């Protein structure tokens, strides 16, 4: 997911009796589906976990602009170009909404950016894979946005007010993202043999990284249990992954493409697809910074940030001068 394996800083779940009166009242509010708002009392671990989760999500949106941004100038028609540009622009917007949500928890955007730029903060593993052909733009929309939506829709109900509101806005705006991706795939799947090959190749390369987006099984994770208790995580990783596979396989079949998993088959008993094992070693390596594009993505981000510094400073200086002039005039 856009925020994978978020640590909560707790090593076990407290029972109600162990909680302080404030903590108990806090948990009762959450249990009653009352939203927590910025300046209200909250456990420090809740605040820190949220900052981690929301900023990971925001960083993912911002880094996620790069693999798709690659193809804006090369989009094959004017309409595709406009759609892709609008989509990548939305991602900037979503990053912005999320940074603002994180800022309500008492951290500045600059601090978060610095954490990202220094490599300290994480972002979704998926964006460390390269976009090699135009079909990858289709695959990202279809698979990556498809997976993201799966997680984001339930998060609209999460316990923290600003995060929930950002999610509502994002879900509303993102509804076209997955469709445009699938639309690209449909055009390719029905196109020339080369185009169809391009589409299959993209599915081959993006399928497993998409399943990794949900993170490793967290059935036994105390962090996930705590996050779910706080209602900042709604479903387990495995649950969402299964839902994603169930939804996506028929879509691939409709395109006439083959999902690159020899173990994939319908299990009538479970009412779900069974699928093969994810290569978690690859996932951990990508998370640790050894994915195909980690260094490149980070370098690009740092470059934009550093090269923009003089611009941000200039605007700030201008505003200060203008304010001083206005004050002098009034005096």
């Amino acid at each position, binding site marked *: 997911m856009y925020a994978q394996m978020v640590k909560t800083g707790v090593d076990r779940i407290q029972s109600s009796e162990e909680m302080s009166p404030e903590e108990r009242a806090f948990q009762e509010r959450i249990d009653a589906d009352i939203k927590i708002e910025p300046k209200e009392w909250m456990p420090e671990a809740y605040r820190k976990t949220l900052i981690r989760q929301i900023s990971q999500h925001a960083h993912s949106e911002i880094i996620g602009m790069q693999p798709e941004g690659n193809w804006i100038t090369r989009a094959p028609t004017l309409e595709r170009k406009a759609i892709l540009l609008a989509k990548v622009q939305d991602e900037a917007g979503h990053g912005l909404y999320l940074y603002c949500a994180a800022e309500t928890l008492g951290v500045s955007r600059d601090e978060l950016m610095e954490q990202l730029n220094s490599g300290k903060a994480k972002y979704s593993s998926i964006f460390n894979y390269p976009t090699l052909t135009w079909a990858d733009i289709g695959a990202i929309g279809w698979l990556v946005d498809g997976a993201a939506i799966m997680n984001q829709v339930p998060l609209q109900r999460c316990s923290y007010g600003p995060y929930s509101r950002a999610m509502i806005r994002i879900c509303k705006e993102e509804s076209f993202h997955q469709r445009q991706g699938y639309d690209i795939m449909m055009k390719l799947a029905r196109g020339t043999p080369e185009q169809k090959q391009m589409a299959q190749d993209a599915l081959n390369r993006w399928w497993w990284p998409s399943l990794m987006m949900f993170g490793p099984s967290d059935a036994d994770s105390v962090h996930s249990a705590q996050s779910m208790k706080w209602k900042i995580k709604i479903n387990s990783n495995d649950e969402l992954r299964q839902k994603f596979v169930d939804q996506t396989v028929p879509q691939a079949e409709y395109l006439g493409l083959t999902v690159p998993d020899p173990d994939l088959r319908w299990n009538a008993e479970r009412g779900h697809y069974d699928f093969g094992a994810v290569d978690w070693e690859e996932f951990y390596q990508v998370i640790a910074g050894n994915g195909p594009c980690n260094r490149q993505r980070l370098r690009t981000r740092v470059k934009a940030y550093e090269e923009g510094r003089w611009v941000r*400073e200039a605007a700030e200086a201008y505003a200060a001068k203008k304010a001083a002039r206005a004050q002098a005039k009034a005096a």
Partner: protein
Amino acid sequence: MTDRKEWPLWEVFIRSQHGLAHRHVGSLHAPDAEMAIKNARDVYTRRNEGVSIWVVKASDIAASSPGEKGPLFDPANSKVYRHPTFYEIPEELGHM
């Protein structure tokens, strides 16, 4: 964290096409009010959401303290006579 200055945070209020009052839609960073309005246009009205924008520096907003919710808002609960439904009007009089 160095104490380097960051563009200040602005809260954005938008009056939508058919809405009555300006509604808080989110926030953003901008060096000054002019740019804040323009940024708000680009960030929060990409889908034709608004006809009027207000921006206000986040640091200029004075907010009620969440801990005082009770004293601030509970007293209004007991003033039911402020609501039109408090009064019973004979039906034959019709709408009032």
